């Protein structure tokens, strides 16, 4: 039921916000593109690497915080001949200890599993992992809609909209990041997975 | 050799008794007068025994006047020359205090016209000759002109000799002579009063020559051209001369008004061009001189000169095409542009004050001749000239230490 209401609400809100979103596009798109390009210019990192870095950072941080992934801002800035990495992500809320513990436990389990798997040389468990993750995400999102008060940095409405709208995408993202993580283990598939990642990005 | 002898302060006698024909005479006079301090003199010419017709004498007189001097009288043993001189109101015989009033009278009638004749520029003259139409000469002189080809060759030899003898030579305009070669000489007016001829000094004295019709006609035309254009012009062998003595005389005075001085470039801030404040600008060590640009090589170009392109040449530059703003044309001699001149132009860049700039449309950002640098006035806001079917050719040259621009007035037909 909650899901249905949330979706409906999103649709209605997005309908009204559509014009505003389009208007802000030209400027925001320019800013975002520019930031990305400049980051690349300043660091000589390719967009793919940058994105991977971004994803990994999000993944890492989202263990402890509930983040607005879409508004993540990663930037390099020059200051007196030194370069600083500026990362700003609106924090929706800090996770409580239980949640964090839960995730960490899960991770440990996964690690253990992976180790076991690698020991047994079987490499087919990715899909299983994915499905598990998906389930997790869903539960998280439910939490989102219920309680988004505390540490919001940016305008509340927009944020919640984005979050809910982008549910599906987030799932995708997670998938990818999982992929990426597992890439570390399996270097063989890396290239193909990168391609996959790009195509997904384009669709967005 | 002719020598200048100072006579009574401002009066000068030039000995030309060893000259064999009128061309030589003209050259010698020019070379003498061109030397320093020879201007603004009253001249007595010692012509020896050479036979001169009235028209020829008139040409010499005009020549002397273009050199800022006055022909006061002549001394000659030839009867023909004597009568010609008397016809012109010149003093004949050796100059004396008694005769002076006579030539002062002569001057009175001509002084006001002198300004006009000085103002005539060669381009204008040339244009005028063309506009007057083709010259027509007597039918029987046609053959004579052909006959006199030999004479012409001789004349040119003489000319060369004479040039060798003197460093200062009359200026010449290569393009003018080119154009002349194409000009079919045709006479429309024969019975022109000599005074009219003199007033206008525009080459029409040729007609008179033809009328009197001697074997020397080619020589005479040559010398007449020399004198009128202040140049050593050449008559091409395929020059076609015809005479039609029945046509009505032209009103030359009217024709002359087709040409005007469009601009005298002075320091004062008026007019289209203004002299640059040359203090501290003109390069040091440029030696001013007057020399014949016709002796120089000519660079012939057919292209559009664009911004940033420079043509620099030791000699004359002839460009068929436009010179856009931002381009530079620098020549030690003349610069002639068959097109719109919009860039920077420098004629006589090594200090030749006799160099000239000509173009179908003169619109340079800077116009420099020898040591005079002028810029387009700030109030003039025409960076680009519209290309039209009609242009009025213009010529800029130095006169009295100013740049003067001449152009043809459009005739209202």
């Amino acid at each position, binding site marked *: 039921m909650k899901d249905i209401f949330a979706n409906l609400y999103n649709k209605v809100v997005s309908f009204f916000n559509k014009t*505003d979103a389009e*208007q*802000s*596009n*030209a*400027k*925001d798109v*320019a*800013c975002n*593109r*520019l*930031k990305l*390009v*400049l980051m690349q*210019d*300043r660091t000589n990192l390719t967009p793919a690497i940058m994105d991977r870095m971004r994803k990994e950072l999000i993944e890492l941080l989202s263990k402890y915080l509930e983040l607005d992934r879409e508004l993540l801002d990663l930037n390099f*800035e*020059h*200051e007196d*001949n030194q370069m600083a990495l500026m990362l700003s992500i609106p924090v929706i809320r800090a996770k409580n200890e239980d949640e964090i513990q839960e995730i960490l436990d899960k991770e440990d389990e996964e690690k253990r599993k992976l180790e076991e798997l690698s020991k047994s040389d079987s490499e087919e468990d990715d899909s299983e992992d994915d499905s598990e993750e998906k389930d997790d995400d869903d539960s998280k999102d439910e939490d989102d809609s219920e309680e988004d008060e505390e540490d919001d940095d940016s305008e509340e409405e927009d944020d919640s909209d984005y979050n809910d709208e982008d549910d599906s995408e987030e799932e995708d993202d997670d998938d990818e990041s999982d992929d990426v993580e597992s890439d570390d283990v399996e270097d063989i598939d890396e290239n193909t997975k990168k391609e996959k990642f790009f195509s997904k990005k384009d669709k967005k | 050799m002719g020598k200048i002898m100072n006579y009574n302060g401002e009066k000068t006698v030039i000995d030309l008794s060893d000259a064999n024909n009128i061309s030589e005479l003209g050259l010698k006079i020019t070379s003498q007068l061109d030397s320093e301090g020879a201007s603004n003199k009253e001249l007595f010419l010692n012509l020896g025994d050479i036979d001169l017709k009235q028209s020829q004498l008139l040409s010499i007189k005009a020549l002397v006047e273009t050199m800022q001097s006055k022909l006061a009288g002549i001394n000659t043993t030839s009867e023909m020359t004597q009568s010609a001189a008397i016809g012109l109101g010149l003093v004949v015989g050796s100059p004396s205090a008694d005769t002076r009033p006579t030539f002062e009278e002569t001057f009175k009638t001509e002084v006001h016209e002198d300004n006009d004749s000085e103002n005539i520029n060669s381009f204008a003259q040339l244009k005028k000759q063309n506009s007057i139409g083709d010259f027509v000469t007597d039918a029987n002189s046609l053959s004579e002109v052909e006959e006199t080809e030999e004479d012409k060759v001789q004349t040119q030899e003489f000319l060369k000799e004479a040039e060798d003898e003197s460093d200062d030579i009359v200026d010449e305009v290569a393009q003018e002579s080119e154009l002349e070669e194409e000009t079919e000489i045709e006479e429309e007016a024969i019975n022109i009063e000599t005074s009219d001829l003199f007033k206008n000094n525009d080459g029409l004295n040729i007609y008179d020559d033809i009328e009197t019709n001697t074997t020397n006609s080619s020589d005479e035309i040559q010398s007449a051209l020399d004198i009128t254009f202040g140049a050593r012009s050449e008559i091409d062998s395929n020059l076609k001369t015809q005479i039609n003595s029945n046509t009505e005389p032209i009103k030359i005075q009217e024709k002359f008004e087709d040409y005007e001085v469009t601009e005298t470039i002075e320091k004062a801030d008026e007019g289209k061009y203004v002299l*640059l404040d040359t203090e*501290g*600008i003109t*390069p040091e060590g440029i030696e001013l001189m007057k020399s014949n640009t016709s002796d120089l090589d000519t660079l012939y170009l057919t292209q559009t000169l664009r*911004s*940033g*392109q*420079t043509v620099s040449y030791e000699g004359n530059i002839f460009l068929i095409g436009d010179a856009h*703003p*931002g381009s*530079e044309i620098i020549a030690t001699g003349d610069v002639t542009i068959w097109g719109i001149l919009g860039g920077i132009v420098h004629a006589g860049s090594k200090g030749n004050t006799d160099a000239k700039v000509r173009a179908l449309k003169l619109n340079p*950002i*800077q116009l420099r001749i020898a040591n005079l*640098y002028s*810029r*387009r*006035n*700030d109030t003039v*806001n025409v960076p680009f000239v519209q290309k039209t079917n009609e242009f009025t050719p213009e010529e800029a040259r130095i006169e009295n230490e100013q740049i003067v621009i001449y152009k043809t007035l459009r005739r209202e037909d």
Partner: protein
Amino acid sequence: MAGRVIVITSGKGGVGKTTTSANIGTALAKLGNKVVLIDTDIGLRNLDLLLGLENRIVYTIVDVVEERCKLKQALVKDKKNPNLSLLAAAQTRDKTSVTSEQLKDICDELKKKNDFILVDCPAGIEQGFQNAVAGANEAIVVTTPEMSAVRDADRIIGLLEAKEEIESYKLLLNRVRPKLIEQNDMMSVDDVVEILSCDLIGVIPEDTGIITSTNKGEPIVNDEKALAGQAYRNVAKRIMGEDIPLLDLNVKESFFDKLKNLFTKGKV
């Protein structure tokens, strides 16, 4: 007297370096400073046109370098302001006609007798840029609120930072269109400043008067009414150390606009 040498640069072409040079130079001179403008865009000079001095140029920087004339001879005095003079670039040569050392020497020489030496830098980051920057101690990076210009400005800032001689650099945002910014169609001043993380020395609004002033060969600072002229005058004052707030670029709103804004604001 040791004058300040300021290079005006941008990386990208067409953002208004030359216009900025002409206007800041004129404004500084109007404030009583002795100013020399150096056009280092050899082969594509334009500063002379903007100042309306194109008909006065006899010698150029190349002539100075090649010792065909003295430096003093090559300085063309402005029509109106005797405090302002121009050292023009040669139109018929290219950037390699002058070396960085030579330009530095010229700047050092001019420094002695002038308060400000403004070096108009050519577009690009090649020899021309290196030359222009060589003698300068300060830089003004001109950019517009467009991606390409901002990106190039970022590159230039990076290069300037690597130069030891450049003690400070400031950003000048040119051709700002308040209306477009208001509608979120254009990056705002803050956006650009944030992205480039560079101090701002001025914001110049887009002004059609610039076009006419260029055509007339008279910098827009001479137009007391023009907003862009006012903006440039403010920049000049800031260069001289005065603390002047940024110009309010917003054109006065009509009642209708205000009403409209009220509604749209309420909605968001």
